[in-house]
Every structure is written in C-alpha cells, then in structure tokens.
C-alpha cells in the first residue's frame, strides 16, 4: 500500500466524527449509525491493505523485505532542538493493531446501531457515534504515531473519548463521576509518562529525538546515553513509562477506574474497555521493546505488577454479581497476563494475548450487551439464568468466548495464555531481576499466573452457568430490584417501554448477532494464527516471524537465554523443552478442568428459587473474605481516606481558609489599615479617594524626581 494513504486511516473516522457532529439530530438515526460504521469500515479496509503489504516474507526469514511505511504530514512543533512531527508509522506491530482497532471497531459500530436503537433520548445517538468515531481516530493516532508526542496525543485523546462515553448518560451523576474518575486516574498515569519522556529526552543530549525509529538507532549506537544495560536512566524511564501504562491499561495501583467505567454503554465497554484502549500500555511497551530489554529491573516490575494484578483482579471477579463487573475485573486480570508476557520479554506472546483477548473479550462484552438489551437493562446475574433457551445465538457465541478465556484446548485463548504461562516458567530469574538476586520474580509470577488461570476458569464458569443455565430467574421478585446505580447502564433508555417486566427474553436482531458470530469464529480459531512449533497444524509461530522486524533485535539482545523458537536453539534442547511444555500444559488443563467442575457443582443447573438472590452457595454473606472480595477489598475506600479526603480537607481548611484568608490577606489588610492610620495623621488633603488624583500624583511625582535629579 502506498504510504500516502496512511493519514486516511485515522482521517476517515475523524471525518465521520465531524460529519455526525455537524449533521447532529437533523438526520435519522440509521443514517447516523451508517455514517459512523462506514467511516470505520473504510479505515479497516485500508488497515488490512497495510497489513497485507507486510505479509510477503517467508517463514524463518527473520527480516522481511518490506520496510516500515512512514508518512509525515507536517511538523507539529519545533523549538530549540526539540521536534515533533505529525507523522505516521506502519510496521507489522502497528499494522496488526490497526486491524484490531478498525476491524473490531467496525463490528462494534454495527452492533451499536442496533444497541443504541432503544435510546429514549433520540437526539443523543449522533453524539454517541461521533464520540465513538473520535475514539477510533485517537486510538489510531496512538498506534500509528511515529513519535512519542503523537502517541501521547492519542494516549490522552482516547482518555477523553473514554471520559465522554463512560459519562454518556450524564443525567445520572454516578455515570459522570465514573467518567471523571477514569480521566483523572489516567492523568496520574500520564503524569508519569511525560516525566519519563522528559528524562529520556534530556539524557540523550544533542542526539535527542522524539521519533521512535531514530530513538532506536541512537540508543543502539550510544547505549551509554541511557546508562547502558541496567543503567539508572533506562530503568527509571522504563518504570515511568510503565507507570503511564498502569493508568491506561488498568494495572495496580491505578486499575480502580476500569470497573467503574462499566457505567458506559456496553458497546463502549467492548471496544474501549476491553479490546483496544486498555491494551495501549502493552502496545507502548512493545513499541519500546528496545528500551525495556535494557533494564531487567523494569522488566521485573512490569512482569510482577502484571502477575499481581492478574491475581488480585481475579479474586474480586469471583464474587461480583453484575455481569459487566465480572467481565471488567476479568479484563483487568487478562491485561495483567499481557504485561506478564511482555515483562518477561515475550513480546510476541504478550501481544498475541492482546489479539486473542480482543476477540474473546469483545465478544463476551457484546454478548452481555445482547443479554442486557434483551432483559431491558438487567445486569444482575442473580436475575438471569436459563438464557440459552431464549437466546441461542448469544448463548453459542458466548460459549466460544467462554471456552477461549478459560483456555479450552485449541481455542485462541488456549494458545496465547499457555504460551505466556510456559515462557514465564522458563524465564531465567536474572531477566526480571526487580529485587536483584534476592527474589525469584519469575517464579512468583508463574505461581500467581497459574492460580489466576484456575480462578479465571472458576469465575468465568460461574458467570456462564448463572447466566445461561438453570432456569430464568428474571420474571419475578422485582420488588427487591436492588439497582446499584454504579453498575447501571440504562439511563436515558426506555426502561419500561413496550415490553414491561416479566416477559420472556428474546434473541437480538442481526446487527447484534452478526458481530457476535464473527467474533466467535475468531475466538475459536484465532489461535491458529500462531500455533506452537510442536503443534501439527496451523501457522507455526507466524506471528513471531511476522513481528521479527520489530522484536527480533530485542529478543536476540536478551542474550544467553533463548526462546524455543529462536533459530539457533539446538534440536535436542528443543525436544526436551517441548516435552516439558506439553507436560505442564496438561497439568494446567487438568487443574482448569477441576475449577470448571467445582463451578458447575456450585452454580450449574440451579433451579429458579423464590429468593433468587442468594446464589453464592460457596460462602455466606457474613463471611469476611466473601465480603472483602465483594467490596473489592475496599481499595476505593482506602484511596479516598488516604489521598482524596485529606487533600480536599487541607485545601479547604488550611490553604484557603488559613493561608489565603488569614495569613496573606491578614497581612495585606493590616498594611492597608496601617497606611490609613498614618494618612489620617497627615490630614485629609491628599485623601480625596479619587484614583485619577493618585495616578496624576504618581505621574507628577515621577517627573519631579527626574527633574530634581537631572538638575542635581
């Protein structure tokens, strides 16, 4: 593809956003949806053309003949030695990401045109599509920017779109609060990100650049600028960038916004808060792989944070009752897996999980949206059940997503998750030496990841069984309709419009089911894009070869330790390692099978109950651990008590009330009074209170002084 077409990839969704904003409510809703969907679909065509242009090189060929495509629109700003262009870069990494964004983006736009159909406030649909297109634009800038600054534009841009879309139904304060929380939490990450950027920039001296390709060359030629391998600068910079990623990609300690972000319409949750935006942090680390491999400490931080987040989020997901909350914590957990992957230096494996997760998590969010849509905005799983009978397409497609996320053999999630687990297991501790030689971070990560895989199988089974199996529990007991305002997605919607409650759920229309089917196919078979070397069929490690131009150098630089797929690995070692890998995989699978079995015993096939609420047979309401998990381990409350409330109180009662009003103003007023007292002694002749007189006095005085001095 000609690089001249690159600006059109983000340009078309931007155009769509502008067109819808200008036309506004003047055009019918289907047209609004069509404009937005077509804009992203056209961009998707260009993205796939871009991807295709990188698919020439044969397997085993480490470096493809095709160079990255670049296109510079104009110089954005240039001050002193600092320069940033509006320039685009398409290489295998960004091309895949572009396809994910626009491909899944098109499907979700199509889905939205039906999902948003029952919005009561007809006038707002154009606003929704305008924001959604704007999001795709910003996300593409993030991915395609050829320099840090343009990436940062996208980085903050997606944050704004996320803010706007989470708070889309702004009449409910809770939604607006969730949007603001997302934006502010992300800003904390962005704060670290720009500090990392500044540090990196100034440490490069006169070779400073913002351009990724140039930066890679500069560092390759002068590693000493950033302190060499394990140097202070590169470690600090990488940690700060990762700090930025913990905001955008919802990791400890900044993950708290993502579950609340579920207040947005469900298609938004699928596109932004599952498939694309939240993976930006992993993408960024992949883009900067040449920096990260220079710092084992930073790699260790990434891996350990990822593993801890994966585990921690899973412990919350197991007790949530809101279907979207379970999926949200599951997303946080899966993002942790991805960070674990890139943190141990398995960039391809980490990114592979980005890809497969985009398929199956978008699918499950859209599936949950289909359910929520059919049940008139019911999100509580305790009032679902038995839906497989009523919504067959949703059920079967959701099944595909469910199998993928628990790692059922041969599904996409099986391949990607297993690769991360296995590579973590064989990661040498010195590669992720966060705490020097004292702690085996890789070992801890593997343990956490394995337990997380089991927890994942358990809580996803819980969700799956509670929703689709047993009998429908939604038709009754609506008096105790305990709506949690935070979790509610429905505001601005016709809550009780044509159907009323107590009806039978029904399958959703085709714009909803078609994206589900496409994503289900991808979730089931997407793993064959990158099958392990020992696997009889599929494209062996094709992704790994495909990404070789991006990750190849870094993977080589990781030195004495080689992944099995690196060419110079000996056959004997490969065979031994394969045997081990298969053994561990089997053990994992058996454990996952146990998890599913337990979940089936507890939650599967339960009959409808009169109370319909207490379905967590595994624990009682009074159980402390259960309450802790249900209340998200009180982290929000902790942040509030330790950071937010004290800041607010000090600002109001100390800074404003004391420093400003009493100290500074007190002094000023005292001076005023003193001057007044002094002036009264002098008589009132000069105190006419007229400013002109004062000003005249000043002017005359000035010239008098000048005059006197010039004579003297």
């Amino acid at each position: 593809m000609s690089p001249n077409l690159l600006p059109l990839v983000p340009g078309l969704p931007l155009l769509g956003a502008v067109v819808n904003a200008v036309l506004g409510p003047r055009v019918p809703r289907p047209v609004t949806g069509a404009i937005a969907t077509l804009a992203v679909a056209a961009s998707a065509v260009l993205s796939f053309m871009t991807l295709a242009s990188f698919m020439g090189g044969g397997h085993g060929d480490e470096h493809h003949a095709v160079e990255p495509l670049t296109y510079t629109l104009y110089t954005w700003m240039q001050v002193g030695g600092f320069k940033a262009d509006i320039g685009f870069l398409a290489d295998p990494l960004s091309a895949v990401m572009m396809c994910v964004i626009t491909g899944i983006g098109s499907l979700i736009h199509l889905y939205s045109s039906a999902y948003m159909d029952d919005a009561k406030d007809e006038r707002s649909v154009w606003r929704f599509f305008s924001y959604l297109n704007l999001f795709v634009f910003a996300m593409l800038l993030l991915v395609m920017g050829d320099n840090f600054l343009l990436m940062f534009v996208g980085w903050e841009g997606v944050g704004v779109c996320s803010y706007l879309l989470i708070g889309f139904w702004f009449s409910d304060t809770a939604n607006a609060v969730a949007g603001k929380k997302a934006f502010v939490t992300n800003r904390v990450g962005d704060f670290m990100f720009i500090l990392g950027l500044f540090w990196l920039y100034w440490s490069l001296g006169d070779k400073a650049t913002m351009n990724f390709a140039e930066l890679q060359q500069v560092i390759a030629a002068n590693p000493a600028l950033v302190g060499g391998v394990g140097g202070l600068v590169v470690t600090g910079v990488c940690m700060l960038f990762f700090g930025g990623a913990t905001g955008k990609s919802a990791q400890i300690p900044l993950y708290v916004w993502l579950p609340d972000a579920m207040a947005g319409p469900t298609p938004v949750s699928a596109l932004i808060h599952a498939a694309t935006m939240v993976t930006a942090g992993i993408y960024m680390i992949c883009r900067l792989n040449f920096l990260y491999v220079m710092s084992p400490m930073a790699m260790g931080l990434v891996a350990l944070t990822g593993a801890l987040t994966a585990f921690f989020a899973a412990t919350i997901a197991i007790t949530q009752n809101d279907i979207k909350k379970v999926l949200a914590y599951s997303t946080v957990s899966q993002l942790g897996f991805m960070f674990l992957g890139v943190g141990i230096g398995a960039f391809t494996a980490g990114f592979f999980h980005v890809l497969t997760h985009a398929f199956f998590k978008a699918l499950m969010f859209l599936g949950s949206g289909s359910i929520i849509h059919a049940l008139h905005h019911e999100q509580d799983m305790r009032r679902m059940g038995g839906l497989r009978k009523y919504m067959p397409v949703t059920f079967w497609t959701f099944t595909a997503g469910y199998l993928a996320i628990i790692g059922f053999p041969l599904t996409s999630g099986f391949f990607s998750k297993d690769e991360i687990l296995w590579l973590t297991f064989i990661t040498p501790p010195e590669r992720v030496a966060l705490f020097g030689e004292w702690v085996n971070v890789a070992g801890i990560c593997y343990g956490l990841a394995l337990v997380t895989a089991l927890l994942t199988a358990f809580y996803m089974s819980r969700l799956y069984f509670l929703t689709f199996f047993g009998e429908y529990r939604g038709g009754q007991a609506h008096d105790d309709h305990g709506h949690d305002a935070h979790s509610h997605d429905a505001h601005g919607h016709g809550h009780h419009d044509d159907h009323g409650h107590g009806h039978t759920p029904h399958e959703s229309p085709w714009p909803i089911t078609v994206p589900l089917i496409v994503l289900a196919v991808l979730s089931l078979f997407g793993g064959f894009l990158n099958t392990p070397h020992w696997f009889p069929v599929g494209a062996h490690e094709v992704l790994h070869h495909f990404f070789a131009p991006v990750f190849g150098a870094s993977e080589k630089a990781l030195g004495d330790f080689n992944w099995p797929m690196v060419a110079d690995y000996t056959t004997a070692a490969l065979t031994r390692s394969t045997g081990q890998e298969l053994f561990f995989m089997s053990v994992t699978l058996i454990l996952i099978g146990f998890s599913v079995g337990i979940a089936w015993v507890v939650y599967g096939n339960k009959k409808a109950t009169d109370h319909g609420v207490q379905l967590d047979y595994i624990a009682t309401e009074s159980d402390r651990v259960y309450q802790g998990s249900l209340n998200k381990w009180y982290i929000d409350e902790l942040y509030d008590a330790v950071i937010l409330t004290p800041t607010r109180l000090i600002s109001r009662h100390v800074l404003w009330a004391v420093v400003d009003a009493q100290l500074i103003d007190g002094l000023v007023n005292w001076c005023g009074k003193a001057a007044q007292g002094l002036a009264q002694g002098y008589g009132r002749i000069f105190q006419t209170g007229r400013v002109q007189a004062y000003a005249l006095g000043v002017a005359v005085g000035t010239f008098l002084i000048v005059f006197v001095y010039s004579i003297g």
Partner: protein
Amino acid sequence: MDHILSILTFLPLAVGLGCFVAPDKAASGLALVGSLVTLALSWTLWGSYDPSGAEFQLTETIPWIPDLGIHYAVGIDGISLLLILLTTVLTPVIILSATPAVHERLNQYLGWMMVLESAMIGTFVALDTFLFYVFWELMLIPMYFLIGIWGGERRIYATIKFFIYTMLGSLLMLVAVLGLYFIYAEQNNGQYSALLVDLYKLDVPYNVQLWLFAAFALAFAIKVPMWPLHTWLPDAHFEAPTGGSVVLAGVLLKMGTYGFVRYAMPLFPEAAVAFAPAMGALAVIGIVYGALVAMVQDDIKKLVAYSSVSHMGYVMLGLFALNAQGVTGAVYQMLGHGLATGALFLLVGVLYERRHTKAIAEYGGLAKVVPVFAFVFMLVTFASVGLPGLNGFIGEFLILLGSFERSPVLTIFAASGVILGAIYMLWMFQRVMFGPLTNDKNKALQDLTTRELVYLSPILVLIVLMGVFPQPFLEVMQPSVERVVLRLAEATPSVPPTASLFDPSAAAAVEAGSR
C-alpha cells in the same frame, strides 16, 4: 504604514474618548468598529514583521524629553507581536459581550474598555522604560473604574485591594527604573537614556542587578500574580464584570510575565540566573497551591481565578527554565491561558446573565438544557486542562520539558498540577453540566444565542488552530525568544544572591549615577 504601531496604540484611545460622549447605541457601534479596525490593523503586523530580522522592528523613536533622554520609542518583536494580537482579538469579543450584559452607563464602560486596549497595546510596544511605565500605570485607571463601577457587591474592597497591591509594585518598579536610568548616565558620561536598546547594552554590577531585579520582579510578580502575592486576583475577578474579568485574565496578567521577559530578565541576566531557583520554586508553589485551592471553591469565578494562579505559575516556571523550550512554552502559555480563561469567563458571564449567580451549587444537569453551551464549555475546559490537540497542551508541555532540564524535582511537582488541573476543572464541569437537572430555575435556561456564538467562535477557532498548527506561532517568536535565552546563557552569576544583596557598593553605584 510608517506609524502603524502608534496608530494601533492611539486609535483605541480616540475611539474610547468618542464613546464617552456618544449615546449608548452609537457607542457600542463605534467601539465595535473601532476594535475591529484595530484588529485588522494588528494582523497586518503579521505580514510586515520579519522573524529572522532585527530584534525590534517597525520602530519609531521620537525624543520626548530630549534633555532627560526620554523617548517616545515603540517597536515590536515576535513576543510582543503575539501578545498584541491576543489583545486585539479579545477586545472586540469583550465589546460584543458587553452590549446586552451591561445595563448602566454602557457608553462609559465601552469607553474605558477602549482606553484600556490603548494602554495595553502601548505597554507591549513601548521600548523606553519611562514610556513603558506610563502605559503600565495608565492601565490601572480603566481597570479601577471597570471593577469599581460595574462590579459586584464588594467591588470597592476588591478595587482598593487591587489598586494597593499594584501600586506597591509600581512604585518599586519606578525606583528601579530610575536606578537603571542613573546607572546608564554614570557609565555614559552623564548622557541620559531610558531607551531599552541602550539599557540592554549596560553592564550593571552584579549586586546592583540583584536589587534592581528584585524591584522589577516584585512589581511584575504582583501582576502575574505569583504566590504569595495573588490574593487580590480572586477578589478582583469575583467582583469584576464579565468583560473586566476577561481582559484581566486574558491580557493584564500577561503584563507581569511580559515584564519579566522584556525587562527584568534581559536587563539583569546575572540576577535572573541567580534568582531562577527561587522563582522556579515560587512558580511551582503557585501551580500546586492555586490548583488545590481552586479545587475547593464553591463559586465558578473564584475557581477560574485560582486556576489562573496555577496556570500563570506554569508561565513563570517556563520563563525561569531559561532555555528555548521553557521560554517559548511560557509565551505560548500566555496566549493559551489568555484565550481559554478569557473564554471561561465569557461562559460564566453567559450563565450569570441568565441566572444571576455564579455559585456552582445553583447549577447541575445543564448539558441537557443547553447542549451548544455544553459543547463550547467542554472544549474550553479541555483546552484549560491542557488536552493535546488544543492550544493549552503546547505551552504546558514545552514549559515542563524546558523546566525538566533545569530542575527535575521542581518539574515533578509542577507536572502534578496537570493531574490537579483535571480534577478541579472536570469536577466543576460535572457539578455544573452533568447529573440530574434538579433546580427548577435552570429548566428553561436559554442556550447560546447567535450573538454569543459569534463572539465566542474566534476564541474557539484559535484554541483548536493553535493546538493543531502551533508551528507558525512558534516560528514568529522563536528568534526573539532565542535572543533572550542567549543573553541569559551568557550570564553566569559569580556568587549566590543572598551573599551580595547587602554589598554596600550597590547603593554607591546608583548614587554615583545620580550625581
């Protein structure tokens, strides 16, 4: 046109005087046409100014008091050019916004506003320290009346406070101006000159520099305002009418930072370098303090006023980064803050006109009733929080980039203001625009009128344009900024300021010149 700068300076004054004698209706027409002509004339400067040329261009130098070496000297460089454009863009906007809002003595209001424009342009073009001082003082008078006559309930307290603060600074500056004047005479055989180009060539002794810098700095710091000299600003804004707030935040605060970059820093480079850590620290305190106090305000105008303290702290931080990125960012932030905060005050004015309250608690859920207003308000809010793609980001980013070279620690604190900025702005926005529409008085709120859209649109266009295409603006000021930075780079103070402030030779040097 040979006298373009003089015409630009005095045309608004003539129009203003005309407004005083005209009836309201004619005065508003006159003021609008006058300010638009001024705007058109000022844009011709963009064409006639050559960024790569001499330091000051389009100069006019006429002896004013020849014996005393005082001149009517005007001229522009890239920095003042941009600030003049900011002034001439905002003035017609204010004139347009005043007509339905000001009910009493409209002609005088407009008259004072035009006189103020004259004084502001004069301050930016002046190249003689005495001329500068005259225009500087002249700005006070219209502002005094704008707040004192058309202000809120406590307007007298606010004006007096504003006046006392500013006069205190001005008097110190006058002393410093005179000091400099005499030092010139001493070094040039009794020849007097107040011309900036002459004074730039002076070799002022280090310890004298410290004193003179301190005097100038105090005057300018009050105007900026820097913490802890900021407490006049929230009161002045709270009481000022909309137009007064717009011009105050939009242009008048920039006089302080402009004073630093035009006078205090290049005239006393060694002192500027020596004081840079202290100035940087005060700037950062201002950023964080302003943001924290803005967060807990219950009144929209006070919130925006404290946000100005925070944003102007960025400008000061950038200036005292003493490098190209920092100073460029600072000038860009002056423009960015002028536009965004000006627009915020206009929007608050729109609300105030309809509901006669600025209390945040009185609002809520407005986005549903006034969607166009909501869109505009949101865009300006995002510009104010420094969202990339809008103008606020360029300045903030360059400032922080520049200051990181000088002091990473200060920059960390300063950058935390980016988080706080998002908190107070978005929280305010949420409380005003989102949530349920509970207050009955807001249910029939009128959306932006065509007139309001017309006067807001130039600001909105510039907010986007300057965010997406900053380079033309950066290029215009680049050589001028580099001259300042170069002058500072060549200066290396030998001893820390506290050690030599009380060196008795300082007074002696001034005294020698005065004889």
